[in-house]
Structure formats: structure tokens, C-alpha cells
């Protein structure tokens, strides 16, 4: 197969992958962020101590994290069909990708938020701040660099997951690699997708690190 034949397939693969990963990252952040914060707030010593809520959310997150993604992908087919109308194609893949990444991102958020010095929370409370003040003016801004790193990590994990989605007709680079590189023994396709994936991950990581450094330069040395 010549480059001119490969090129449109690969371009479409990149577009599909980015489409799936961007949307699923967005959804996981939107759902995972509040979940992660909730895990910290409802924990022992948290502002909203609530053992029941903490346990339930914790168990749900753990179940989500312990399932291998490929199993989740297949298990979610009925649900995906219900939501999107089909379980094939990049749009359909956003559902399992997001659901797979939400618990992962929630745990990262939990860790990042937990690292915020409790003294800062105490100071906000001493000023008369309530829970919204503590969350939006203390916990999230203080954890921002770690949160950005968490988004980067989630994005990269989702690139990996999205390649798996190719196995069940999800489209994207994974799909290209499987149907051309694996099933048709087109080695160049395999090589090309590997190179593109490596480049993609590297660029995302560099962008994420640059964003964290930008924040660090504001003199957050202590």
C-alpha cells in the first residue's frame, strides 16, 4: 500500500481518536471532579463527614477502576445503544470511554485535593467561609497544578483506551491498526499508527507539563 493510500485512512484515524478522547476527557472531568471532591469532603475529618455517602461513592469508584476496560467496553454495549442509538463508531465510543475514565479521574482528583494543607481549610473557616468557599476558593485553586496533571494523565490513558475501542468497531487509530495492520498484515500501517500514537502522547504530555510550569512560575514555591 502506498503512502497516498494510507494517508487519508490515517488522517481520519487521528481525527476520530482526538474526537473520542477529547469528548470523553471532557465528560470524565465534568463528572469525576465533583466525585473526587465529594470523596474528600465526606471522608472522616472532612467538612461534610458522611460515612454512608463516602462508602457508596468509594465502592462505585473502585468497581469502575477494577474492571478491565475491554470488559467494560463490551458490558456497556446495551447502555451505549440506549444513549447514542448505536454502539459502533466514534460517537458511541465516548460513552464507555468516559465511564471508564470517570473513576480513574475521580481518584486522581481525590489525591490532588487531599494534598491541600488542612491549615488552609481551617483559615478559610476561621474567616467565616462555608463549604462553597472552601471548595472553590481554597481546595480547587490550590490543587490546580495537580488537577491539570491529572487531566493530562487521563487524556493519555484515554488515548490508550480508545485504541482498544477499535477492537469493537469504535473507529480511530486503534481501528486502523487492527483492521489494516493486524488483520491484513500491512506492517507499515502498524508502524505508522504506533509512531502517531507515540507522538500524540508526547505532545499531550508536553502541553500538560507546560501548563503546570506556567502556574508554578507564579511563585508558588511553598
Amino acid at each position: 500500500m502506498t503512502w497516498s493510500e494510507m494517508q487519508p485512512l490515517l488522517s481520519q484515524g487521528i481525527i476520530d481518536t482526538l474526537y473520542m478522547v477529547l469528548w470523553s476527557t471532557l465528560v470524565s472531568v465534568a463528572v469525576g471532579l465533583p466525585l473526587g471532591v465529594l470523596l474528600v469532603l465526606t471522608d472522616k475529618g472532612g467538612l461534610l463527614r458522611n460515612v454512608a455517602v463516602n462508602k457508596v461513592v468509594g465502592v462505585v469508584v473502585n468497581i469502575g477502576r477494577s474492571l478491565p476496560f475491554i470488559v467494560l467496553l463490551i458490558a456497556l454495549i446495551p447502555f451505549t445503544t440506549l444513549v447514542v442509538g448505536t454502539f459502533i463508531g466514534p460517537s458511541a465510543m465516548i460513552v464507555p470511554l468516559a465511564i471508564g475514565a470517570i473513576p480513574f479521574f475521580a481518584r486522581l482528583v481525590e489525591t490532588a485535593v487531599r494534598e491541600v494543607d488542612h491549615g488552609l481549610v481551617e483559615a478559610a473557616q476561621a474567616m467565616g467561609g462555608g463549604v462553597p468557599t472552601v471548595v472553590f476558593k481554597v481546595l480547587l485553586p490550590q490543587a490546580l497544578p495537580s488537577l491539570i496533571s491529572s487531566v493530562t494523565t487521563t487524556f493519555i490513558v484515554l488515548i490508550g483506551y480508545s485504541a482498544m475501542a477499535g477492537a469493537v468497531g469504535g473507529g480511530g487509530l486503534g481501528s486502523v491498526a487492527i483492521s489494516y495492520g493486524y488483520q491484513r498484515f500491512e506492517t507499515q500501517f502498524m508502524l505508522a499508527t504506533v509512531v502517531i500514537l507515540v507522538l500524540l502522547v508526547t505532545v499531550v504530555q508536553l502541553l500538560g507539563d507546560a501548563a503546570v510550569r506556567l502556574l508554578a512560575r507564579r511563585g508558588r514555591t511553598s
Partner: protein
Amino acid sequence: METPVITTTGLTKVYQSRGREVTALDGVDLHVREGEVFGVIGQSGAGKSSLIRCVNLLERPTTGTVTVDGVDLTALAGRGNRAGRELREARSRIGMVFQHFNLLSSRTVQGNIELPLEILGVSGRERSRKALELLDLVGLADKAKSYPGQLSGGQKQRVGIARALAGDPKVLLSDEATSALDPETTRSILQLLRDLNRQLGLTVLLITHEMDVVKTVCDSAALMRRGRVVETGTVGELLATPGSELAAELFPVTGQATGPRRTVVDVTFHGEAATRPVISQLSRTYNIDISILGAAMDTVGGKQIGRMRIELPGQYEENVVPVGFLREQGLQVDVVDDEDAPLDTQDPTPALVKETAK
């Protein structure tokens, strides 16, 4: 001056820790008068930290009441863990500074001072005006746009103090505010607290493990041990209390008789007598030579207070009249009995061992 602005009554705090109960506060009654700097001193684990956190209810007392500026905070607290609106409003009128400053590294110095104003719902322009005014007050007018990470420890604590003052509090709580600072910076921060106390009529309740802090700024002090207040009073009152540990720590006098047949007495100055040159009067009146073995004096409000250890020639029986003279002057005189303090146990272990900053 005499109305208490902070009162705690029968305050207890019991922590549950793995089924065991730990009593941090065991019936604390504290009265902090308006406009004074009140120091609570004690070793770590004595309960000072729990006490100051109970004053603005960052920690809920197990029993007892806390009244700040006429408002019973314990009544506002309600049940549940979350602080209700009324309690949060009351807290916004109590400033607090912390040992580790607790500034947000994500905000500029100005942004940090604006945080309490944001909580109070003050408009943007007014917030910025107030923040700059407070920065000027603490001597950091040029640091508004800096981040806390770019400041020294002393500067950070000044920002912490400016932030604590943003809500125009009547009361400032200081939780070991100088314990993470070097001695020189400690002095400048204490001086700032003293100035604010005088200029703004701010009542300051501070906790510390350093006697020097109490010595430098406090009008009144309380000594805590195992969750109880063991001694309390103004510095003058403490001095007048025989056997007061705080007075002994605040005004330590040492020194032994220079030879046999001498009388060593401790003279405590407080009140009116302190303004008269009694020692030289004594010397002239009875024509005796007096040696000063040690002294710890301080001038508070234009009056000298403190202790002096002096030596008179001759045994105690020969000195009954001069000692009587001193007592007539309104001074407290305690005879130091040599036999009670043999040489090898002369140096008693200090009641308050200095702990290192956490």
C-alpha cells in the same frame, strides 16, 4: 477596660480516639478583658491549641460556653458538623493568625487579604482599597502583587495578620504566630501585634510555648497544664501571687549568698512602691550595704514591676527591721532560706521547658 470580651465557662473538650477518650480541655474558665493582650502558655499537649480553636469554634467544645464580644458562640453552633450562617458571620468578626501562616499560594498577597472580604461579600473595588490599606498598616505596601512563595517567614506572617484584620475584628486569635520564626522576626511580629493592640484597641488572645512572647507583649497570662488553667491574671497580679510559677518564669531571679552570716531576700515590686527608690532609701536609713544578686525588672505602663534578689549583711535575726521597712513600703519580701536550697539542687528544672517549633 474591665469588660471581658472573651469568656469561656467550664470549657471541656474530649476527643474520641480509637475507643479511648482523651481530655484536651478540662473545665477552662478564661476571661480576656477588652483591649488587652492575653497570653496562654503551656507545653505541647497542654490543651492550648484546642482552647484557641474552641474560641472561634473551629473545634466544638464538648461542654461549656464561649462568649465573644457578647455573643454566645456555642449557642449559635447548633448541632451537626457544618457551621451555620450565624456562626460563620460571628467568625468573620474574629481574626485568626496561624503558626504556619496558612496563606494561599495560588493567590497574590493582595488576593489573600481579599479572601475574607470576598466571604463578607464586599465589592471588588472596596476589597482592593481595603487590602492595600491593610498592607500599608503591616508595612508591606510594596508586596501586593507578590506571591506568598516569594516572601520571607516574617513577611508571610504580616500578610497573615493583615488578612486577619480584614473583617475589622475586635478580637485577634494568635495560634503560635511566632513559633516558626527566628528570634529577631519574632520580636518584630510581636511589636506589630502590640502596635495593633494599641492603635486599633484590638484584643489579642495568643497561645504560645515561649515565655519570651508572654514577657514581651502580654498584659495578662494564663498557664495551662493537662487541659486546665493552673494560674491566671495580669502580670502584676501574678507577681503578687506567692509561689506563682508564671511570675517565677517571667521574672526569674537567681544568686546565692556570697558568704556565711548573710540574709538573702527576694523583693517583689508591683504597684506604687515600685516607683520609689526603696533600695537606696533602705541603705541610707539603716546604713547598711546592700548587694543586688540578681534582678528581673520590667516597665509596664510607666511602672516598674519585677523581682530583685538582694543580700543584707548579718543573719536574718539582725535584719528584721530593714525587712520590715521594705514591707512597710508596700513591697513583698520573701526570705530565701539557704538551707532549703543546698548548692547541688540550686538549679531547679524549669517549669516550662522550651519546645522546638513544630
